[in-house]
């Protein structure tokens, strides 16, 4: 079982590396977005899967990353790395300031608090046009370049995003296996027992909230460089809902689930767009179908099929 799992992971990596050059440019473009969404969705997924927190405010940190990159690279002409780092610093500071008071809430109340955070932030992005450019946004964000190699095609950018996704997944994997991950599991299993063993639930949840914000910010900076612009329409509440859908669809406790969920969110609406005006309804139906029929998400359902076929194969 373990060997076959490693084989599947290796094969997937090989496909992710080797296939895109043979795909149409338009499709590679979707894969880039799937990668960016994976990074942002991974944060939401860690909160949902490890802490049981539904975060409807990830767009705030995504936007902060995008605006930090846009403002600093366009108006200050700072190197791209500065945009990434400043975005992450602001996001972490904000996540700490907002997270500490709201993470004493649980369940629906906490979800609503994060939703409120997203709505307030969206209004501020709109109002603070001296900083964000308001509805016009900030355009002309330079392409990323690594030394003299400019990432100016979807394919080139794709490989950068692939690398970032791989690093983030690896870090998340290590986190789950660390002492912090153990404390998170303990908290999920029996919060009172975990507390009596000196686990501080609020501090732990705040740490994951900050980590999630950092991932959102990195994704936002990547988005800004890839699209070349950042404006308030890209940072609406529906995007936050999409980010939450990523782990819900893919499977909240599985890291691969986040990748699958992000692919779903990025690719399925495009595939359905050929049906014209109907496509949004069809997307809604697809969402409901996955949530109702696969309560453990797409990867959960796949794992179940795998388990059954393995059992069936045994004499």
């Amino acid at each position, binding site marked *: 079982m373990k060997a076959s799992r490693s084989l599947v992971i290796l094969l997937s990596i090989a496909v992710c590396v080797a296939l895109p050059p043979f795909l149409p440019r338009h499709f590679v473009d979707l894969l880039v977005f799937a990668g960016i969404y994976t990074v942002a969705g991974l944060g939401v997924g860690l909160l949902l899967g490890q802490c049981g927190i539904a975060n409807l405010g990830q767009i705030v940190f995504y936007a902060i990353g995008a605006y930090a990159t846009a403002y600093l690279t366009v108006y200050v002409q700072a190197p791209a790395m500065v945009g990434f780092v400043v975005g992450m610093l602001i996001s972490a500071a904000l996540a700490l300031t907002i997270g500490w008071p709201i993470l004493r809430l649980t369940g629906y109340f906490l979800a609503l608090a994060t939703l409120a955070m997203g709505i307030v932030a969206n209004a501020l992005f709109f109002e603070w046009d001296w900083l964000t450019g308001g509805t016009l946004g900030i355009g002309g964000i330079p392409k990323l370049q690594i030394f003299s190699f400019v990432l100016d095609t979807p394919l080139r950018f794709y490989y950068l995003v692939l690398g970032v996704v791989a690093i983030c997944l690896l870090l998340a994997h290590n986190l789950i296996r660390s002492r912090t991950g153990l*404390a998170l*599991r303990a908290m999920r299993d029996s919060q009172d*027992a975990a*507390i*009596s*063993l*000196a686990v*501080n639930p609020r501090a732990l949840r705040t740490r994951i909230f900050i980590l999630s914000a950092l991932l959102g910010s990195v994704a936002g900076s990547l988005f800004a460089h890839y699209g070349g612009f950042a404006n308030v329409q890209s940072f609406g509440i529906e995007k936050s809902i999409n980010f939450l859908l990523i782990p819900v669809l893919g499977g909240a406790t599985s890291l691969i689930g986040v990748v699958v969920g992000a692919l779903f969110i990025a690719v399925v609406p495009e595939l359905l767009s050929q049906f014209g005006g109907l496509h949004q309804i069809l997307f809604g139906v697809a969402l409901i179908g996955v949530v109702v029929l696969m309560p453990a998400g797409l990867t959960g359902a796949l794992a179940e099929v795998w388990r059954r076929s393995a059992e069936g194969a045994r004499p």
Partner: protein
Amino acid sequence: MLAIKELTAGYGQLRVLHGVSMHVGKGEAVAIVGANGAGKTTLVNAVCGLGPVTQGRVIKDDVDLTSDAAHRRGRHGIAVVLENRRLFGEMTVQENLRLAEEHGRAYRSANLQFTWQRICELFPLIAERRRTRIELLSGGQQQMVAIARALLLQPDLLILDEPSTGLAPKIVKEILHVLRGLRSEGMGILLIEQNVGVAVEITDRAYVMALGRIVHEAAGTEWQTFLNDERLAAAYLGKASAGI
């Protein structure tokens, strides 16, 4: 060592504890007995910081812990075995013990009373089944893991909430044997029990709780013969518990 003064606690409008005062001396073993619904578990939760306290104080070694967060109380030498054990069911025995072991080591870096080796001597099953998932252990084995987990926090006061519930008499005997050993080494014990027959075996003194109050304190011979006094037992514990 532990002093509880005029403690009032409850949930929302409902008051469960009405001014409870009690104490556990250094190295002393004290029982709290009482029928279901007497407020025993609410008292444990209040001492551990897991439940709300509206009035009164919890003091350990002259330090007022009343407003200290629950996760910080282990530092003051308090460890608890919660009702129904509350082990982490999906984890292995070893994983269950790891958090306690690491935090306990952080509290008492200099002299660890309960090393991994010592724990395995107390409970040989832990060494044998360290990689087994908790769900696959029997109730008695689980209780031993729960006690081991509390001990790894290196406490000097061990609180146990109904440790004998649902266990076979033979297992209860084994657990009592371990607790007796701990006691003789100076560990303070606060045992919450419905089963007076079990509590009498290892404690020197007891508080009887009813309807959120301490209604009686029994020590010495009175406590040792508590069950023989039908009037007392029936009055405070109900007929069912009295007839064990």
